[in-house]
């Protein structure tokens, strides 16, 4: 770890004023500190936002909820409103990391956690995410955890967050505060950038922007939600692939469907074309296979991740079968309830 200055922000203004490209926000620190120890991230200044008031609440916002940026992953997953109306989010959170880490990890930090590409983690390896233009050692390397969608020649990395995949399926927005105090809301696709030739630029945030909250719209009434995560062991591993689904059935037909995919792209992946294929249809395994086929039509950019195509396909079919009632729901597939 390099020596760094530490600032404990007392107000949002003070936090923003302390931020510049050489500084990093620290929230739970579960990702930042690991990366600092390895000198993958070397901020000169660390701005601690954990004492800022008012960012750790879950509050009603219209028909939905406002999740403060400092709400802990474990608190969010356990919140009765989340469990009843957004069970998918709770499932996604609980599928991530470990109990200890979730107790520290925050909503804002989870969204902005960095990729787990092993070549990004090893400063001896070329990585354009660490050093623009340096090249990508993952090309031709060991790539089990890499992405299959949205990659570029400069970067094959996948976004590791489970929570973000759930949020993408729930159409959540991120509330961002700029230095002048102005607030704006970004859909996740507006927050995360695809790598192109600048994989170091992962989001559209400015150095002195702060995430203050995540806004959940009202859940789809009467929907079934599912989060299914495939990984190399039963717990405490990042997703090889994951599928988030929100499905509302309408008299035996699929009335509404939202699907998001994790472990496969530099940001939570969503494909409106797939959802359109499902709308108005009666659930049918052949249809689900067709949808899954279309999702994974293109070859993987790296031979090591070729396996993610059949894995994603089959996982999607399994999720759709359960969420539409073709098969018995298993753990991770829940009917939403009205928050009493």
């Amino acid at each position: 770890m390099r020596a760094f200055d530490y600032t404990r922000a007392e107000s949002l203004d003070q936090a923003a004023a302390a931020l510049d490209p050489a500084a990093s926000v620290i929230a739970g620190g579960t990702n930042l500190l690991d990366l600092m120890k390895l000198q993958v991230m070397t901020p000169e200044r660390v701005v601690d936002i954990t004492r800022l008031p008012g960012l750790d609440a879950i509050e009603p916002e219209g028909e939905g909820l406002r999740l403060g940026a400092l709400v802990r992953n474990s608190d969010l997953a356990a919140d009765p409103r989340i469990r009843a109306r957004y069970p998918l989010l709770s499932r996604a959170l609980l599928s991530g990391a470990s109990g200890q880490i979730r107790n520290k990890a925050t909503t804002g930090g989870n969204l902005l956690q960095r990729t787990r590409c092993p070549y990004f983690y090893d400063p001896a390896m070329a990585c354009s995410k660490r050093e623009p233009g340096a090249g990508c050692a993952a090309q031709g390397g060991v790539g089990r955890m890499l992405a299959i969608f949205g990659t570029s020649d400069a970067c094959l990395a996948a976004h590791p967050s489970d929570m973000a995949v759930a949020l993408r399926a729930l159409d959540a927005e991120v509330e961002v505060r700029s230095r002048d105090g102005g607030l704006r809301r970004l859909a996740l696709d507006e927050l995360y950038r695809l790598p192109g030739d600048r994989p170091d630029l992962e989001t559209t945030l400015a150095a002195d922007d702060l995430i203050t909250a995540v806004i959940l719209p009202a859940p789809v009434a009467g929907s079934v939600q599912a989060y299914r995560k495939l990984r190399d062991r039963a717990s405490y591993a990042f997703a090889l692939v994951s599928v988030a689904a929100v499905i509302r059935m309408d008299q035996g037909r699929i009335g509404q469907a939202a699907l998001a995919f994790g472990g496969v792209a530099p940001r939570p992946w969503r494909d409106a074309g797939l959802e359109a294929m499902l709308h108005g249809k009666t659930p049918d395994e052949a249809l689900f296979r067709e949808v899954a086929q279309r999702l994974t039509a293109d070859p993987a950019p790296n031979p090591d991740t070729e396996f993610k195509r059949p894995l994603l396909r089959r996982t999607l079919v399994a999720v759709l079968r359960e969420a539409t009632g073709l098969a018995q729901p298993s753990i991770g597939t829940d009917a939403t309830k009205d928050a009493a």
Partner: protein
Amino acid sequence: MTQTFRMDKPQPRLLDETRQGVIGTSMDRPDGPLKVSGQATYTADALPEGCVHGMLVRATVTRGHLRDIDRDSIADIPGLLAVVRDPRFLRNPAQGMAGEAPDQPGDRIDYHGQPVALVVAETFEAARDGALRLKLRFDSVAAEVDPDHATEVEPQDPTESGDWNAAWSGAAHQVDVVYTTPCHASAAMEPHAAVAEWQGDRLILRGALQMLRFNRKELADAVGIPPEQVQILAPYVGGGFGSKLGIGTEAVAAALAARELGRPVRVVMARQTVFDAVLRRTETRQHLQLAADAEGKLLALGHDDRVSNLPGEEFAEPVSSASQFLYGARATRFRQDMVRVHRVGAGSVRAPGEAVGVIAIEAAMDELADALGMCPVELRLRNLPDQHPVTGQPFSARALADCLREGAKSFGWSDRQAPGARQEGDWLIGMGMASAARPNMLVKSAARVRLSAEGAVVETDMTDIGTGTYAVLTQVAAEMLGLPPGQVTVKLGDTDLPGASGSGGSFGASSSGSAVFLAAKKIRDRLAAKLGCAPEDLSLQDGLARGANLEAPINDLLAGEVLVEEAEIKGGKTAESHFSAGFGAHFCEVAVHRWTGEVRVRRMHGTFAMGRVLNEKTARSQAVGGMIWGVGSALHEDMSHDPRTGHVVTRDLANYHIASHADIPRDMQAVFLEERDDFANPLQSKGVGELGISGAGGAVLNAIHNACGVRIRDIPATPDRVIAALEAAGR
């Protein structure tokens, strides 16, 4: 001078006669409270006055030379003391029981990740900063890193018997398959660490090490001083699994830096360095050929394998070790190719040989049972040899048949159905089994026991690497001396104490326990004389001595005297006359998800016969721990190397997956059958931990097949491999 006792003939089963009643019980570890309250001082926990911190720096080329070190590149770090570089640095840790320094390559680099320098600073943080930023220049040459394509292949001497062609060609059933296993990391919880301090010409090293008697010689040889000037302390070791058998790069670097700087130096490996530079288990490619007649009698058994190591390293994973004695066949063949690659060196990792070899032979046996349409348990029962098929030795004690039968009964094996027949929702349920076997060893070991009015003290340089040595040696001494365990103190992990076997090869408890047994027996004999009875009439219990109608408190017999006895044991004629091994049988039930290929172990029973159980609880922990490693090797563990540089890509425990709690079912049982191995040692006990691993992964693979009808021959059986097999089978 103590005379060394040689195990030349079976010894009386004295521990079946003694009265204290602690041997074999589930006694708690005496060191348990210290450990769970964080008070046990592991290597890195105790810092001598003025201790500074060193961090290893790795080579970032695969093969070549270190040209120079740009010390200026980190000169700005406050508290930086030195960049230590010494031709005596080790290329890799010593192999187990080497007793001498491993390769000291000077400026030569043989693998990406090789430790080449030590940055020393006043604080750990500054040292780590310096180690990560230090600029090194290398000359680099091309290197072979992939065993599948490497050209330097050294065939080892084959072991063959019978007429292979005759046995193979006419057989009614043949299985001819290739299994592969990846590299494994030991993955001990405690990273490798050393604290070195010089007192004049004397080197005192606190180390995370398993075998101090050997480590002392290795360290002395590496540094260039006589072993008498080296003292090693390792009172508590946070797991080893083979990775701390030999002296490590961190220990030699700490010793040399401490000398150079004139201050104590602590070196703790970063987790990444543990993966980069500690000996791995080789990947294997195993070719299994089994032929049987229509009744399931094995005619031919071939187990050829390919392993790898760094150039010059002698260790070769004994992959087919158990295949040579589990079953007999008319013709057998065991061949091994050693491939030289520039990857971090290979060495002993928990159950070298059996951990990967028994998976493959037991999976191939399952394939043969399938081909025969025979119950896999029955196939094994039909092929148990009368004696060691290669050496012709009789077995000292082999309850494999009992393990197979008892295990099948307690598990409910008779409920097993045809592949793919059992389904619960989207989960396919299957059962599998495998035999377990692991050769047992007795390694030279000494111990001292003193008995006084305060109780007994046991002293040996034996280590407790989390296995329960403190508990087991307490029990042996308490049992022999008729004392409540609370009156026995065990002192371990100090080379100034009598030299023991160390912890490795599952021989530690039996070997060091036998030395304690013999020393305590001498004290018993002296107590018998004091009481006035023959030694065989003496009975000791709760501080009271009885014999020949006489009775006296032990303390009265001592009358203020302190009785001190030392004993040493080593293997003798019984090791040649008989073949001693632990045996067992694993039964396992898994669920395989028909869409996603996920595998979940639902229950697993291991039934073992490994001689006398010295402590029911620590033995169970060892056996169940071994089974868990077995599950992990079947389903998760996979150390990946970059195909271009050979460096380890899975460099931390987030990427290198060992089984998590959620992977292990609640119904995970180890059952011990009553056994005494009279030829093993005076305790009649055998090794436990590695026996638990042996075959466990094979049972999991076989259960996968029974669940969904596909064979996974490249392990681990991760979801992608399972669905690839399912899709290939049209499912």
